[in-house]
């Protein structure tokens, strides 16, 4: 592997790990929001308004921040009996097919969500009513943005597999 490719892989690994850590702590924050709501509701008759809106949008955020690292680590769920039985070249072919279809799927998510994201910013789309309103545009943007990061990570893996620089071991 040349130095440029190694540096790029290292950069991608580090960046996706940071996103993954942010995502994991975001999940922990959800517990705090629920607790605030429960204690407020049961003890002081003052629930935390907007719990469901914040939590719902957070789940999408948590997933899309974690996905690049999951892809990079090769942690997507799969069956392994054929994968483990074939030659290293066979495993490269199977992984390359996964990466290619992954690129297509995330491109579909990006193109499918693009117009809705633009409209959401233009119209100031909100969720919730009355005392608590959550803007929707950020979460739509997050899907498109980190969908694009997933495409880039898959493209990098595909490039490395195609060049023979990434030979997957049996899972």
């Amino acid at each position: 592997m040349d130095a440029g490719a190694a540096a790029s892989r290292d950069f991608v690994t580090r960046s996706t790990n940071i996103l993954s850590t942010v995502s994991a702590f975001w999940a922990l924050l959800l517990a705090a929001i629920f607790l605030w709501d429960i204690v407020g509701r049961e003890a002081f008759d003052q629930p935390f308004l907007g719990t469901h809106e914040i939590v719902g949008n957070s789940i999408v955020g948590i997933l899309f921040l974690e996905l690049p690292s999951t892809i990079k680590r090769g942690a997507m769920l799969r069956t392994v009996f054929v994968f483990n039985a074939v030659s290293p070249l066979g495993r490269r072919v199977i992984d390359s097919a996964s990466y290619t279809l992954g690129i297509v799927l995330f491109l579909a998510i990006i193109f499918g969500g693009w117009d809705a994201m633009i409209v959401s910013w233009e119209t100031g789309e909100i969720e919730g009513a009355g005392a608590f309103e959550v803007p929707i545009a950020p979460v739509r943007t997050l899907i498109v943005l980190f969908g694009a990061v997933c495409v880039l990570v898959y493209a990098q893996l595909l490039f490395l597999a195609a060049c023979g620089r990434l030979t997957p071991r049996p899972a």
Partner: protein
Amino acid sequence: MLAPDLVLIVILAALIALVVAGLHIGIVLGIVSLVGTWLLFGDLTITLELANQSAYAVLRNSVFAAIPLFVLMGEFMSKSGMAADLYRIADYFLRRLPGRLAVATVFGNAVFAAVTGVSIASAMTFSRVAYPEMRRFGYDRSYALGSIAGSASLGMLIPPSVLLIVWGIVIEHSIGKLFLAGFIPGIILALLMGVYCVVRAAARPALAPAPTGRDDKPPTGRETVSGLGVVVLILLVLGGLFVGLFTPSESAAVGCAGAIFFAGIKGLGWRGWREAVIEAGKTIAPIMFLLMTAAMYAKFLALGNIIQIIQDLIAGLGLTGFWVTVLMIAIWLAMGTLIDSISIILLTVPIFWPLAEAAGWDPYAFAIFGILAIEAGLLTPPFGLLVYTVKGAVPDPSVTLKDIFSGSIPYWLLMLVVMAVVWLWPVTATVLTR
């Protein structure tokens, strides 16, 4: 545009071929659903809208928060060593029984199952703690390993359970009631497993020699804190849920906070804390991604009226409800040997549940029946996931997969027995849901 029945054949064939070949299951689910939708309607806008809706709308429901929070709770409990302490407490109180260390493994797993939502963490912990202890006192290797792998399956049946949450999301029924439905069959299975350990050890004492010269000390202060912690967490999480104080997501949040509190008391430092959160993140994302793409698959099935086509096919074959159920069991047991449990639920339940409903199944009894069949698959060759987990975690490289598989067979049979109980007497699962 193609006829829906032709699209069904093409898509199901592609789905099976690509999953078996080892492509990422979530990616395959998403792609075949999008391609299937495009073949049905010949319209790229509808296809892209399916991708957009699944990514944006499906997961934005607070019920999904229960999954990351229960996983976080389990990670904190594992990292703080509470499962190991539970094992030692169970061992002390069961000290007069034959095969006490194996029975302690089963009951330790059963109690730990009531505070965690996944099987793998239990299998890893008990492999590291219970196996060396059983071997130290001369327990038969296969008998010891079977008790660890077999009883780990209780984690998915006794609430809270991530599998039951996923099942509830797929069939759009109450997750709280599904948890209640798992309770009695879970207790029955745990008791049967415990009885098996005792009877086997009593019949062949060489399998599990009574520990001699062992100083049975009562639980230490540290172990007592763990035991109390687990009791408090069970009361908070399941009690709060069952009396209607919390939703499933809220009870997961309370459990998560409780686990962090007890982990702090037991001295889990910042390093362990950070590891627990990051490890949980790694478990959460593949599950949530599968849920997202499975939503594409479910919508594709609905758009193409695929369920009706399959129901017509079954009716054309003249299969009765009994044989439909037998067919489903066979498919689940076969898939269970190859694919992880959540993928199996997401692939099969959208199709199986309407068939089961038509065959007269109660939704809650059917869920428990299905979870048992899928979990049984995790113990069977060639690729029982729990067996591989135990193999990877036991601190003894001489252990073979054959040792674990052969020790697990009785537990697999006991799971089939409980399946038969739920099938013949669905009331065992439904009585608490009424």
